[in-house]
């Protein structure tokens, strides 16, 4: 794959560079398309190969999404390069199989998933980004419409999506840094929309093999009930609103973890607060594609902030976190 990308992508930058201040009508058009994209990726049956590109590396994965007419949403993501890894989603449970370390991570939610892009999320997008539909492109053999989200300030990243012309299925997603640098991109290279699927196609190939693997059972006990964790921000970054606040378990952790999510309608930043581990962690900043991760000890707690936002935003959230009172345990 390496080396092929510059050639593949030459000439695709037009829409991004051509992003102009848009009329409200164009913005409405773009917001409507975003909504269509969100529902298409949950409503449609599709299977294909996509490339995840970040830090100059490419990873190819296979994805199958299947909606059972009798009810239920099934999805399978399988990496094709490097060590084998698999993610299976069945309704409200996400299971990650990591054969390399013989580990299974199960992320289960008791509550229903958010409906595809709530109206208030869309209004958040309109408040924080200049949204415009800039033209047509072609991805994986499908014509698609390009939506550009230009951030109104440096607190968030820019985005560019290409949604399949007929169905609205997102075929390509790119994240652009506050310095106009590419951070990561997802793009289908081969895709089939529609078709009949069988349950077997979304079953893990490790289902049997993983019986004696280490399973992070703690995640099974998640009770993501909205709760007052007692923590809040003194300086909430402009445009970010609290999406949810709950207590939960995290794979591999024994203690309950407070989890607060802030979002500007598109980007989300998660704050995890847990008791300090035995070895007091040093402040540290790391990244994975467009996601920045900042760890900071606060009194006798460890704070981990994770979000697809610039490091400065992630750190501002972490640094302005304060325990305001007795948490409702």
């Amino acid at each position, binding site marked *: 794959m390496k080396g092929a990308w510059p050639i593949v992508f030459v000439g695709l*930058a037009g829409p991004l560079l051509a992003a102009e201040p848009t009329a409200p009508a164009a913005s409405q058009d773009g917001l409507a398309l975003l909504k269509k994209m969100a529902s298409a990726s949950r409503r449609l049956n599709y299977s294909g190969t996509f490339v995840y590109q970040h830090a100059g590396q490419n990873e190819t994965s296979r994805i199958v999404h299947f909606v059972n007419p009798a009810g239920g949403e099934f999805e399978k993501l399988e990496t094709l390069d490097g060590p084998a890894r698999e993610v299976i989603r069945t309704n409200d449970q996400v299971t990650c199989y990591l054969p390399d370390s013989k580990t299974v991570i199960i992320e289960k939610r008791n509550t229903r998933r958010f409906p595809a892009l709530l109206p208030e999320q869309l209004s958040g997008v309109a408040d924080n980004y200049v949204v415009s539909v800039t033209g047509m492109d072609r991805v994986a053999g499908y014509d698609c419409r390009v939506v550009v989200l230009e951030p109104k300030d440096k607190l968030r990243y820019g985005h560019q999506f290409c949604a399949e012309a007929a169905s609205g299925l997102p075929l390509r997603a790119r994240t652009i840094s506050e310095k106009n640098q590419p951070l990561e991109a997802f793009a289908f290279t081969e895709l089939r929309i529609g078709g009949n699927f069988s349950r077997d196609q979304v079953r893990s190939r490790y289902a049997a093999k993983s019986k004696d693997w280490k399973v992070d059972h703690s995640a099974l006990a998640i009770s993501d009930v909205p709760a007052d964790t007692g923590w809040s921000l003194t300086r909430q970054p402009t445009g970010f609103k609290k999406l949810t606040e709950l207590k939960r378990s995290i794979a591999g952790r024994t203690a309950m973890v407070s989890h607060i999510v802030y979002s500007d309608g598109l980007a989300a930043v998660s704050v995890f607060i847990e008791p300090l581990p035995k070895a007091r962690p040093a402040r540290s900043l790391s990244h994975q594609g467009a996601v920045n991760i900042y760890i900071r000890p606060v009194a006798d707690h460890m704070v981990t902030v994770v979000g697809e936002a610039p490091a400065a935003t992630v750190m501002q959230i972490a640094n302005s976190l304060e325990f305001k009172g007795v948490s409702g345990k």
Partner: protein
Amino acid sequence: MEKISELIDGELEGREAQQQFARLKQDNELAQCWATFHLIGDAMRGERPLSQGFRERLTLRLAGEPTVLAPRPFASKRYVAYALSAAASLSAVSLVGWMAFFNNPLAPLPELAQAPNTTPSAAAQTPTAPLASVPSEGRMNEYLIAHQEFSPSTEIQGLAPYIRGVSSTRQDQGR
């Protein structure tokens, strides 16, 4: 020198190859040239990240060499010619890479221009002391997965963003 390049290209066989290998062992300059050719080949194929400042050092050394246009009474000058043309194609490759990058902000940087361990943006604009950002290399998977489920971008892109949580980005992998 041509023999060495043929050897690298796998055009020599048996006895002839043996002869060249023997020459390589005896001739220091030749051995160095062998290494340089391979380095250039690796770089052109983008097979391994080169140490920072590699190109500068190479350019500096090339600049120190006599130019191709000078009379060349000695056979060793031919190495210079080869290396220079190789370096020329090398810069052509990176130029194409850069042009692709400027045309399209999302095209990956060519391997040469890339410092895999640094994100300059990370340390900027922070209220506390600057902190360098390092690749998470799979250490934060459980947090990424827990976070992903609440991110609106997951609503738009389905399961695809989960690839971050299981991505294998160890720098030494697949090289």
